[in-house]
């Protein structure tokens, strides 16, 4: 073998080496990603079973836990991560498909549990069932809309199902709602909505959500106003709404004040001197 040939082979080895490193690294990272998904899924499963078991033990619904949105949030996070893994590693990756089936199952279980709780406790739970399919450009858009909604209203429960997943549970679930093979389909309070639903259209179906959101925004505005006036951090201030025009607040358990909002939305702030002194007295 002459020097030229040795060189060609040497270069070939380096090139192959770089390729092996690149592909190996990406493969390793993808596996890490799937493993972390697996962990998260296991955690969600435990929470879900815990809720169910508690429910069975008591034979009645633990109504206090309905407001608990942690499970829903984790389920949402899991969904987001699964979505990313899917676009990243291809829809045909068997591990991803497996995870997705399991995720669908968890969603159905969570949905059923919530329904039961809602019935027993006589409350309404805001939920959206979302069915989508492959090769459906509108579904991608619907996905954007729902992700944004979830960001705006974390308490909203959104369950999404890939009808092309070839999974019996989803098939059974879809057969409960007779909507034909039109995607995207949203099921909100037993009504089905087909075709792309934009944010305002969905918001309209949840008036209480909007109301709560409005209250929250108002409260945030008042908080900002107080912070600007008293130079305290947000965590130290607790606010109570007395009426649309009047809010009272306590800062750090040290002094209190009142914010008044007049008809034109102009805010004024008063610090209650006497009370703040009495707080100081109490502490002494």
């Amino acid at each position, binding site marked *: 073998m002459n020097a030229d040939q040795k060189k060609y082979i040497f270069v070939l080895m380096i090139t192959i080496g770089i390729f092996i490193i690149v592909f190996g690294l990406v493969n390793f990272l993808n596996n890490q990603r799937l493993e972390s998904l697996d962990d998260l899924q296991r955690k969600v499963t435990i929470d879900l079973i815990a809720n169910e078991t508690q429910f069975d033990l008591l034979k009645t619904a633990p109504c206090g836990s309905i407001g608990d949105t942690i499970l829903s949030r984790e389920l949402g996070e899991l969904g987001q991560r699964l979505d990313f893994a899917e676009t*990243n590693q291809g829809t045909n990756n068997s591990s991803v498909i497996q995870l997705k089936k399991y995720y669908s199952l968890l969603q159905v279980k969570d949905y059923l549990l919530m329904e039961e709780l809602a019935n027993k406790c006589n409350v309404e739970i805001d939920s959206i069932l979302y069915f989508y399919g492959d090769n459906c450009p509108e579904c991608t858009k619907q996905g954007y809309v729902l992700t944004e909604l979830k960001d705006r209203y974390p308490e909203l429960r959104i369950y999404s199902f890939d009808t092309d997943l070839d999974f019996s549970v989803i098939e059974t679930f879809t057969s409960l709602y007779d909507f034909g093979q039109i995607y995207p389909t949203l099921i909100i309070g037993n009504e089905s909505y087909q075709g792309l639903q934009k944010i305002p259209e969905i918001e309209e179906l949840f008036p209480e959500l909007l109301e709560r959101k409005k209250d929250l925004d108002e409260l945030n505005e008042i908080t900002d106003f107080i912070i600007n006036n008293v130079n305290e951090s947000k965590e130290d201030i607790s606010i109570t709404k007395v009426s649309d025009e009047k809010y009272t607040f306590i800062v750090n358990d040290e002094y209190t004040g009142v914010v008044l909002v007049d008809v034109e939305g102009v805010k004024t702030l008063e610090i209650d001197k006497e009370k703040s002194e009495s707080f100081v007295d109490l502490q002494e």
Partner: protein
Amino acid sequence: MEIFLYISLFITLYFQIFLLVSFFEKNKKNEKERAAIGTIEYLTTTIIVPCFNEESTVEKTIDSLLLLDYPKDKITIMVIDDGSTDTTWQVLQKYKDNPQISLKQKTNEGSKFAALNFALTHIETELVGVLDADSWVDSKSLKYYMEFFADDQVMATIPSMVIGRPQSTLQKAQKAEYDIGLFARKAFANINSIYITPGPFSVFRKEVFDTLGPYKEAHHTEDAEIALRMQRHHYKIAYSEKSIVYTIGPRSLRPLIKQRVRWVYGFIRNIYDYRDMLFKKKYRSLGLIVLPLGIFRVFITVVLFPLSLWLIVLPLINWVEKISLVGYSFNIGTSIDWYFVNITQINLFAIIGLFLSLMTLWIGRELINDKRKFTIDIVYMLFMYTFIAPLWLIKSSYNALLSKKSSWR
């Protein structure tokens, strides 16, 4: 589709590493020989300056040649006015009494090679050089050449080409591009695979033309053809990195694309004409790797460009679609969640490619002792290569396939 992409990437990477290895292959023998030369022998030299409507630049070119650090009786400057229609001939008259300069006028025949051959018939010196009228030389450049011509085997020597006085963004981009080119030139020189003797200041032994014949039309790239002809006859072409010649790059887009279409078209057509050299063992690395991969890279860019453009545009379309639906939100988290950092093979190869480009640029600038290594022009160059280079590559490939002629100016 994906497998095709990876094969192309593999070959491209192979070529880059091949160049790197070749670059660092120490040509110890040559260097020792050159170091052994005590006194430099100055060979008689004629520099041909062909000009066609170069009234604004030709003076600078000639003045730089007059300033060459070289014995005055050993150098002649032969200026050929190739039928200029502007005042070039009048401008040249100021040199008519200079004994070093001979001025000649001929009617334009539409291509540079004719002007060069016209000059060759009047030359009797040992060396013949060419300097385009839009370029100027560093005063030491010719002197450094003599270290190489001291070797009887060396039949031609080429310089380090640098973009002089870059002003427009495109010229700055070309500056970085040329500096990277120096790296490749050195690597090619190490493995005797230089396949072009560029118009700015390539110097030949006169016997090259006596034995191999004069310049040919060669699809308006006579400088590529003569180099290939020399390589076919195993004539050695050296590269003197210390000899610096400055050239002006096209200022704006249209002339740049026109220039490059001519180059790439000429390159493809000349290799087609010399296709018998491809994959022949006796031409060693030039025939086995440099020329085949040179052609391959032209065509692969033609294919990869639409693909990479699609890869850039597709997420952009999705993003716009999303924004139009849900509005823009500023909630960019302060902490990065590594889970969502998209690391793919393509991304990693892009990083490797960028790293190699920067490394070769650094080496190129080190060769010509340019102290400012990483400047903003790198960004311009990357931009030029992503968005503009494919245009000329596609156009010249298209022309080459249809054998369409491209004019040389």
